[in-house]
């Protein structure tokens, strides 16, 4: 026709293709030579950064150690990290990318259970081992279990049982439970309830939405309940906010508190300092001031060097152990074939900084413990410490 139509912006398909290919080539597979590749998926931005970034240190430490000792079967280890952005879809895409582009042999991650569940689907399809050192959801190795899924975290079954033990110690009596409203808390409290001794019971349960900033409603509910002990699972920044908001009400003077979700870590007490509720029973994956053995002390020293601080974080030990397990499996199986690795991992026992750990051949879980103890003020510092700290599972 004779141009009676306005000129639409014409974009040639060729140009699109050129662009896509161009960008694609940019990210051409990094064909580093004959190494064993570990794909790591952790949240390193936004709200997840406080977990993901310290957790990466454990990976680094384990790999440095192994490589300095000559690698595994003569091959060096190498890791590729991707930010999950705390989003399951992003994490699955990244997991796939790690497998198909970087050619990683095993996957380690992630932090939040929802994200790990999504990655587990990818692991299942691609027949690549996913080793979950932090995610606690029991669904990973129960309802959504598959051959390539391993879980070395202190899962909700163990944790509920351990907390029941703590409850006995503090003579908890009537318990009210509180946590974020998602699978972790629900599973945890189910396990706690079934492990409670005679004479103790959960009388009230208050869930709050994930990411809550204002805990006043919860605080009033807790103060209004006639329970003797509070079992808490609110973690991370939420715990900080909750404590800050509850302090002026005097909530912590009213009842006994037993808090899971690793709020006994040095990171947490360092951030809350004097505002930390003294006497609260809490737990942590690791404690820099509470070495269990010479091996643990050696680990802490190495980690301190890597992190550049004596007061090391608690997350590294989890990912450190995961890499050590995987490296050992690769060494035993003599290669990186997933099925051979599964066989090697099933029933594998290993000495870790926190003592011996064994992977159950049936459930693909380990009996992983945590440090538990009451938080106390110590001389000359406003940062509380767990004292006495006991490693239990």
């Amino acid at each position: 026709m004779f141009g009676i139509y306005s000129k639409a912006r014409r974009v040639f398909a060729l140009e699109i293709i050129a662009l896509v290919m161009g960008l694609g080539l940019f990210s051409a597979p990094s064909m580093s030579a004959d190494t064993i590749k570990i794909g790591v998926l952790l949240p390193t931005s936004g709200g997840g950064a406080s977990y993901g970034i310290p957790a990466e240190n454990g990976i680094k430490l384990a790999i440095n150690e192994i490589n300095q000792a000559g690698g595994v079967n003569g091959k060096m280890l190498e890791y590729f990290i991707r930010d999950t952005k705390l989003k399951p879809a992003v994490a699955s895409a990244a997991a796939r990318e790690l497998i198909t582009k970087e050619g990683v042999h095993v996957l380690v991650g992630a932090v939040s259970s929802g994200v790990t569940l999504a990655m587990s689907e990818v692991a299942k399809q691609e027949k690549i081992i996913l080793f979950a050192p932090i995610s606690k959801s029991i669904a990973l190795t129960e309802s959504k279990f598959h051959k390539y899924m391993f879980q070395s975290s202190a899962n909700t079954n163990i944790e509920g049982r351990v907390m029941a033990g703590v409850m006995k110690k503090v003579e908890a009596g009537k318990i009210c439970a509180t946590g974020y409203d998602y699978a972790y808390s629900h599973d945890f409290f189910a396990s706690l309830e079934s492990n409670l001794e005679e004479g103790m019971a959960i009388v009230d349960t208050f869930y709050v939405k994930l990411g809550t900033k204002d805990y006043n409603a919860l605080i009033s509910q807790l103060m209004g309940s006639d329970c003797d002990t509070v079992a808490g699972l609110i973690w991370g920044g939420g715990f900080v906010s909750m404590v800050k908001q509850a302090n002026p009400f005097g909530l912590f003077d009213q009842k006994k508190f037993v808090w899971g979700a690793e709020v006994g870590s040095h990171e947490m007490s360092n951030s809350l300092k004097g505002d930390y509720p003294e006497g609260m029973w809490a737990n942590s994956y690791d404690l820099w001031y509470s070495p269990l053995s010479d091996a643990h002390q050696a680990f802490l020293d190495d980690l301190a060097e890597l992190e550049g601080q004596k007061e090391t974080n608690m997350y590294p030990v989890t990912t450190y152990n995961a890499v050590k397990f995987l490296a050992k499996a690769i060494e035993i199986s003599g290669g990186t074939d997933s099925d051979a690795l599964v066989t090697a991992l099933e029933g594998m026992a290993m000495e870790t900084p926190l003592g011996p750990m064994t992977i159950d051949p049936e459930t693909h879980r380990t009996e992983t413990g945590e440090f538990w103890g009451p938080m106390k003020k110590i001389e000359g510092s406003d940062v509380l410490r767990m004292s006495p700290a006991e490693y239990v599972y």
Partner: protein
Amino acid sequence: MRPRGGVQWTLFGLFLVALVPVVGERYYVDLTTQILIYALFALSLNILVGYCGNLSFGHAAFFAIGGYACVILTTTYEVTLIISLGLSVLISAVAAAAIGYVCVRLAAMHFAMLTLAFSMLVWSIAIKWTPVTGGDDGFVGATLPDLISNPVSFFYFALLIFSTGLILLRVICTSTFGRAMIAIRENETRATFMGMDVRKIRLQAFTIAGAFAGLAGALLGLYNRGMYPESAFWTESGQVLIMVLLGGMHSFIGPVLGAAALYILETMINQYTEYWQIVLGVILLGVVLIAPDGLAGLLSGFRKRKDDSVTGVDSE
């Protein structure tokens, strides 16, 4: 817009894309599949934003509804794939019609905010309706027919759906309805006094956009073998808007470019640095300030005229 210009090129482009599994490694097959899904999502949004001039900030709602509907139908109710796909598109369209009916009463930012409100409502329901949606953990472990369960066959399946969507959307955009949408975008008052029921046309655009977003969502759910509440979150709506902007509004194919560019960019930066946010942020700033017409604008070297006069609404 000339409907013929570029048809050969588009077909040629689709043909080239179809070659990816032949020439490329597995990684490129996966990457292209994901891009196709987001490209369809972005195309559907562009119906609203680019053609009809309605800035929706809750488009992810329909993406998620389609995705959840599809995985729930195929997995929980074991409905066959094709019927599930059809039903999920239908469900998204119905949801879009219902939500749109309320939203199109409003204009500009108020419209954007109401769509945002609705999408957050959808998000919160996805999180809380655990027995059906899987709640916070998402709906994990959807089942797929064997036919499309390997990456290459899924790629062709996605390409087929994408091409169908692309062609349908192209037909819609060049239809008399498409002209009406552009008229409304350019000058709502004038369109009204041509005898158009602007609200109904906007509602129709909203519904169509929702339906195709649902189709894209269904593909994502199948691809990921699951659907997650994050897909309805406002950041997902923001991301697809960025795709549209990056590719260039007012261009039919622009959103495809934008989706490809943003997706590749995000994947790439994540590969090279932990600080992907800052890199992406700076790139976006650059696009907004230097190339507001997006990639389509850059590629065709076409500078949009200042559109100050577009708004000329006559009043007293």
